[in-house]
């Protein structure tokens, strides 16, 4: 499974933090792979709409996350406007944020 993740928006625009990351779950340890694929399946990514959530009137500084998942022949990209209502989707985003941080070395 390939996962691409990008974050934009927030209280400031940081060019270094807005770069997308890509994860190939096959390259992770067995535990990490099971955890991440479990989160993707738990969030039912392939059945989510292309845009999840909407910014409330007047809302500002919220983040927008773009998640693309490719698993065999299946491929889906969704944009999630925070705060996401779905706790399963929130858990996936949180894990991807942590992965992005570790890929950047922070």
């Amino acid at each position: 499974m390939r996962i691409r993740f990008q974050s934009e928006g927030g209280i400031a625009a940081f060019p270094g933090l807005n770069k997308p990351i890509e994860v190939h779950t096959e390259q992770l340890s067995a535990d990490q792979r099971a955890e991440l694929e479990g989160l993707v399946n738990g969030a039912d990514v392939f059945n989510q709409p292309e845009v999840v959530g909407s910014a409330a009137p007047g809302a500002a500084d919220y983040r927008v996350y773009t998640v693309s998942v490719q698993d065999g022949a299946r491929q889906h990209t969704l944009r999630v406007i925070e705060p996401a209502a779905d706790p399963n989707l929130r858990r996936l985003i949180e894990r991807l944020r942590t992965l992005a941080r570790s890929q950047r070395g922070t």
Partner: protein
Amino acid sequence: MKSMPHRPLYCILPPHILRSIAANGTQAQRSAAVRSLSVDHTIRLSRATHQLLQAGVRRATVAAAPVGKRRTIYTASNEEALPGAVTRLEGAPATGDLAADEAYDGLGSTFDFYWDVFDRNSIDDEGLPLDATVHYGSAYDNAFWNGQQMVFGDGDQDVFNRFTISLDVIGHELTHGVTGDEVNLVYTGESGALNESVSDVFGSLVKQYALKQTATDADWLIGAGLFTDKVQGVALRSMKAPGTAYDDPLLGKDPQPANMSGYVHTTEDNGGVHINSGIPNHAFFIVASQFGSYAWEKAGRIWYETLRDPRLRPTASFRQFAGRTVRQASQLFGPAEAQAVLQAWREVGVKVS
């Protein structure tokens, strides 16, 4: 009520002055003020007008809504559900939770600024309770306004400290609520960058007012203290010198332009609302520096009345916004001030027609 279209404003004096005249003036002055108030566009002034028409009105009874801070601080306990559990109510003693107490105090300072300087009773000028959630998410590097309340993350503690650490960030978020109440500047492109800039302007003024700093003394930074020592940078943004707040191997370089010649066209970040806000931010800095003394007295007043100007549209461009600030400067203070505002916009490359 918030969806009511703005009607043209027929009076020159700002509503808070009219209210004062109506409360304290002679009978003739009162009648004139009440007439002016009656054509204002907001429900709060309709309420105030109604009260003024009743006999024996006193200043204390002018405000239609209860005046005073009504803060509630919640904790999300590092989850992402809002608002979370109440951790501190208005009047309660400090909790010992640094983020909760900083949010409580910061909301208080922001409320005091708007009340003392602009006679504004909270976000909606009708005493709206102030709600904030701290400890949002896990190592969450952000703060936002969700349309109803403020939300603060703890930061990852590696690059970012907790987001309640900077008073101007708290003022920035609350001001998004004020903007949403007055003229909901569409959060994309130039109007979105203006929305962001207005939050930076008043966020910075909240801090300057709390510290009683003049325009010369102020640091004009947004989010000073937010970075850990690991970061090569001083803040999220600099209104004094946009583009210089940080230059760091991890974060990249501060992308803010100070002039229209550097306007960034992008689809990300709602069309670069946090990037191009550097241009109007710098215009405000120039105006405030020209006037000297306390920036909230003249420059802040001009920007505040511009935000309340019924002729300012939600889709305003930099140029349209600039035009209204010049007009407000002229009406509030006079030709010299209007010329200074005009010149500041010229310096940042915004030509006012």
